[in-house]
């Protein structure tokens, strides 16, 4: 339990000292996977709150079409995909980070979004159309902050230079897309083979 609290406390150290924070996370084992999992849960919950709880004026999508399970699946899938793609790439590109470090780094980097979600959603009940700019601004700040943390974290745990970190991040996104395509293709293939086997069995059952 204390381990978990220590891991969560480390987030705030990362906020104030990003470069040192990620380095300490790696070298002195300050972070842990448990806290990262809690952050993943928090991210899903706060994103749900944001989509469901936002004031009508600021809602962009149709609430009727919202599904919690779909959102949770999408978030978990993207996180796993990022970790796999980043790990596969950095292994080839002399990265020093392990898989669990990549996972922790990603989750810690996404904390600004969690932090902004709740107050921003609450503020929409106070804002009217003229203040919509603030809404966009806060939203943008949280995303920029998260991307910056991702960049620094990627640099620290893999012991990369700045440019190499940017390059790996971009390639990671490309690899994620590639993996999605491959998975869809493989799924298609499996389905086809399954149907083929099924028809063979059917054919045989008619003959015998």
């Amino acid at each position, binding site marked *: 339990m204390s381990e978990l609290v220590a891991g969560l406390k480390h987030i705030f150290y990362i906020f104030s000292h990003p470069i040192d924070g990620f380095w300490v996370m790696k070298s002195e084992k300050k972070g842990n996977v448990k806290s990262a999992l809690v952050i993943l849960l928090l991210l899903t919950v706060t994103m749900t709150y944001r989509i469901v709880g936002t004031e*009508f*004026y600021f809602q962009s999508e*149709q609430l009727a079409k919202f599904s919690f399970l779909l959102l949770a699946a999408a978030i978990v899938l993207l996180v796993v995909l990022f970790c796999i793609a980043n790990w596969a790439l950095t292994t080839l590109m002399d990265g020093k980070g392990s898989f669990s470090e990549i996972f922790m780094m990603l989750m810690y980097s996404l904390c600004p979004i969690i932090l902004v979600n709740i107050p921003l959603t609450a503020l929409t009940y*106070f804002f*009217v*159309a*003229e203040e919509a700019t603030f809404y966009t601004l806060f939203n943008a700040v949280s995303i920029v902050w998260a991307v910056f943390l991702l960049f620094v974290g990627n640099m620290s745990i893999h012991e990369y230079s700045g440019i190499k970190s940017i390059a790996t991040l971009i390639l990671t996104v490309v690899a994620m897309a590639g993996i999605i395509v491959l998975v869809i293709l493989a799924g298609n293939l499996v389905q086809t083979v399954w149907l083929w086997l099924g028809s063979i069995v059917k054919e045989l059952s008619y003959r015998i």
Partner: protein
Amino acid sequence: MKKLLVSILFIALIFSVTAVPASAEDTVIPYTNFTYSEADGSIVESPQAYIPQTTVYGKDLGIGDFLYPSDFDTDTNGDIYILDAGNGRVVVIDTNLQYKSHFDCIINDEKIDISTAQGITVTQDSVYICDTDHSRILVFNKADGIFKYEIGTPTAVALDDNFLFKPAKVSVDTHGDLYVVSNGTYEGILNLRPDGEFVTFFAANKVSTDAWDLFWRNFSTKKQRKARVALIPQDFSSIDIDANGFLMITTFTAVNDSMVKRANPGGTNVIRTLSNSKINGNKIDSSFSDITAGPDRLYSCLDRKNGKIYTYNNDGYLLYTFGAKAAQQGGFKNPTAITYLDDYRIAALDIDRASITVFKTTEYADTIHLANKYQTNLEYDKATEQWERVLEYNSNFSLAIKMIGIRHFEAGEYQLAKKYFKLCNAKDMYSDARQELRSEWIYNNSWIIMTVVLVLAGFYLYVRIKESVKKRKEKQRAKQQMRSR
């Protein structure tokens, strides 16, 4: 014997009951009414607004069948002038569809061929016929059908030497100026003086293209560019002048998502499009081929492709739709023209069936019309009453919800207004209502805010003073200690 008589009588009774001709209400209507939701643009099924009243063929009038009747128009008395192009004549019937008179198109004692004529318009004393393929507009005397004069291809510096004059539809304003839709002329509506002198092109459509298209055009060869669709503005399909003297113009394809323009006397498009759905029929493949301006600034457009009629109000909201391509009464084969009769009735002309179908309103449409009438006359309280009645018929009708919301907003009932605006997805108005509610809340609760601020400030001061007193005491104590040493 008695039994037989009774049974015969009984059978006769049954037959007499079943032999009553089915009225229009009893027959199956081949279409349904729908509008679009303001929230997400989905289709909202609505009660029937218009039902077919009668269908009239030429032989019903006792003058033989129509042959390719291509257009008709009503005059100020409500008489309908039908351009019976194939027979080379104009048939006049009154507003109850009873035959009044007809005249053949005769020039110099010779009956002329106007089988390709596409448009007719009636003014106080003249009948204008667009003789399309002969490049002329024929003007006849309205009272006796005697030929007055013709307007040929206009000549002007602004016009090309090989300019093709193919008048399809014409409208005449109160000064006698002509506004002519010419087939294939995309430069604009031709504005002509009463004697046919060319004045100017009017209300031209702008070329619509996007950056991406222009980008690719840069890289294509001349041959490729030729093969592609030329970048020219959409040409016009129909024209009508409304009660206020504005020109209602339709195009076959949408210009900026809208197929209808309302041109002011300067030629500027002043159509109001407050609805989230644009004025483009069914949003997929509609093509407006005729427009008719109705009472209370309503206008109805005919989608020739799907045989549907769409009615919009002054703000560009779709009120209802009716009509279909079908064999039953109320269905069309190839409708070419529509026009308003009295009591909001709408007559539609079918060129292939050579018939006129008259549609009459239902109670639902009557309520909408009444609400819209009060709305245009700025009698908002009465209008709201009617809009609420409309909601009883069709609780999903976005326009009614919005109008009631606006009424509540203006009455200062922001909570209610907010509710209605949310229902019809009027986000900006919804936000306005919330803003009013917020300022109301701040106004009513300012004493709480002020109290909290004052208490906090007092507490802060108290802490600061306490601290400074403490410090002073400590200093004094330190001094005393120093002295005592």
